[in-house]
């Protein structure tokens, strides 16, 4: 049952496009609202940091051409949107003539991989722990253990990353400081390479999971408590259903729905937190790319990566929104 109405799908798609358009417009407008010429600002910062910039003339020219700074603003804006729509993100300034698309394209699988694995982990662990915290039959020792494990909740992932690096890489030397796989290794579908990727990925994933799952635990516990008071829970008990069945088919099944809605709303901050953790570990993902680009003052790469991040976020939200009606039979009810 359930299913998607056309209005629902259209609205979700509308929000998807709006999100991307609005974010890109903010990126376009704010630099131009500020006093002064963004190109001039860039160049002066480049000269500041490097003392002298090779090809600076050429870069400025490239910039002027790319932005068409002599054109009127609306022409610039239309061109900017057009370029984005065709995913033409320009050419890297620091790694000329590599295109931004290539740079981002290399990093994207790493980011998406790390993000999906950690997302599955903390969403699962968080909700499981939340459900257990609210369940009457959970042993109190387990409840205490869960509460203690939530100590990192709410701190920024990057701080957790620093602490983990300090403890497990610097002091104990169990895990590598930085990187995505062993230096010198060639990416290939070999057991050696894959195990290296996993080994290098543990600390970054752990940093994200440790600081995030607690939010889902708190939210899930709250929803579980709310659902517990519902009449259908009491009727479920009156039906003599087994406690565990009642827990997962009645209580968790209904409590998880708002959690999925919440997930859609927090994708933005999830992506942001992930980027920072990648930055701390100099991971090959988009976070690593951004850090490098910021150091090199590679504006096109910064802008392109950000745009792709916005795209990834909006797409994830769209997917979640489209999945949601399939798991909540009530969603089509709104038309009545």
């Amino acid at each position, binding site marked *: *049952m359930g299913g998607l109405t056309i209005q629902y799908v259209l609205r979700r798609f509308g929000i998807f496009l709006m999100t991307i358009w609005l974010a890109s417009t903010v990126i376009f407008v704010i630099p131009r609202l500020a006093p002064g010429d963004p190109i001039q600002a860039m160049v002066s910062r480049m000269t500041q940091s490097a003392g002298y910039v090779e090809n600076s003339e050429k870069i400025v020219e490239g910039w002027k051409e790319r932005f068409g700074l002599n054109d009127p603003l609306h022409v610039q804006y239309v061109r900017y949107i057009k370029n984005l729509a065709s995913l033409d993100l320009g050419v890297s300034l620091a790694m000329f003539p590599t295109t931004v698309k290539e740079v981002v394209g290399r990093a994207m699988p790493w980011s998406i991989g790390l993000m999906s694995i950690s997302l599955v982990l903390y969403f699962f662990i968080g909700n499981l722990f939340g459900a257990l915290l609210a369940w009457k039959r959970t042993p109190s020792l387990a409840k205490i253990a869960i509460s203690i494990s939530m100590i990192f909740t709410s701190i920024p992932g990057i701080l957790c990353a620093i602490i983990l690096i300090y403890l497990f890489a610097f002091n104990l030397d169990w895990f590598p400081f930085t990187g995505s796989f062993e230096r010198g290794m060639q990416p290939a579908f070999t057991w050696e390479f894959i195990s290296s990727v996993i080994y290098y990925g543990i600390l970054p994933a752990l940093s994200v999971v440790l600081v995030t799952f607690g939010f889902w635990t708190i939210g899930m516990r709250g929803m579980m408590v709310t659902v517990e*008071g*519902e*009449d*259908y829970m*009491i*009727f*479920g*008990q*009156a*039906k*003599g*259903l*087994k*406690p565990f*069945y009642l827990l997962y*088919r*009645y209580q968790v*099944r*209904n409590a998880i*729905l708002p959690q999925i809605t919440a997930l859609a709303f927090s994708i933005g901050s999830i992506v942001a937190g992930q980027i920072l953790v990648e930055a701390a570990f100099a991971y090959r993902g988009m976070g690593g790319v951004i850090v490098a680009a910021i150091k090199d003052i590679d504006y096109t790469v910064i802008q392109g990566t950000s745009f792709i991040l916005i795209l990834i976020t909006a797409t994830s939200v769209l997917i979640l929104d489209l999945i949601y009606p399939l*798991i*909540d*039979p*009530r969603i089509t*009810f709104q038309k009545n």
Partner: protein
Amino acid sequence: MSESSVQKTLQVRDLKVYYDTPTGDIKAVDGISFDVHKGECLGIVGESGCGKSTAAYGILRLVQHPGKVAGGTVEVDGSNVSNFSEEEFRKIRATKLALIPQGAMNSLNPTMSIGAQIRDLILTHSGSSARAQLKERIDGLLRKVGLPLRVATMFPHELSGGMKQRVCIAIGIALNPSLVIADESTSALDVVVQRIVAQTLKNVQREMGVSMIMIGHDMGLMAQMVDRIAVMYAGKMVEISPTREFFNNPRHPYSKVLIEAIPSLKERKPLKLVEGITHDPRNPPPGCIYQLRCPFAEDVCRSKPPVWQQLKKSHQVACHLIKDEDHVAA
């Protein structure tokens, strides 16, 4: 017929349900005792907060926090279930003691189809051997309560209040329980639908010969539906009587108020006003629980709680004002 020859489906003795509050326990149900005979329909009436629903949930061990069953025994079909473990008690829920909740409320799981919510009940108690005739059983149940078979694939939000209520009845009677407790089962329905659902309920009960407790506040509905009526006030049972006798000859002053308060559709009468002072439930007065509202209260009512008296025609009442000549010989 004598008391002993009647088979008892349910025997409740001195049931107590208390609510824990920071300022002391509220005695929501304070030591009530009654029986339900085989095949009989007993109505429990009273106004909001009198403890009638709480008593039902106490019998079913479904009292929610901060409430707790604080004492008393419950016997079902002659066996004392009060000392059953949680797991033992779970097994007699729906098979011996079933609940029909208010279907208009949120009593059905919104994320499961109606069929699935009947199925899980049958499979839990009858094991997987029941799987073979599952569809026929579900269809049979839906037919019995007058629902079209397509309801099985529908979700609660797609049903009207009356249909949901019938689903609740179907679930309540699914496993041929000894006793069903219908808690305000038709209260939220419009009058025409209420009549249809109530009649369905009554027919099903008669056909199956199941015993029933009907909890409600609508005296008219009770007159139509039940064989005996029990009246509760402030956690105590004050009167139990066969329905006809109850309406013809109510003995407790509170029962009289309840009957007089029913607005008639037959004749226009002057309104009967009653004083509505109630006591603080944490701090009941000594003596009779009804003394503050009772226009006939005497000194003895203020000092001594009334005892349960057996009157003629299976009529029982707890009131000091009942005179001796009405008593059955001891």
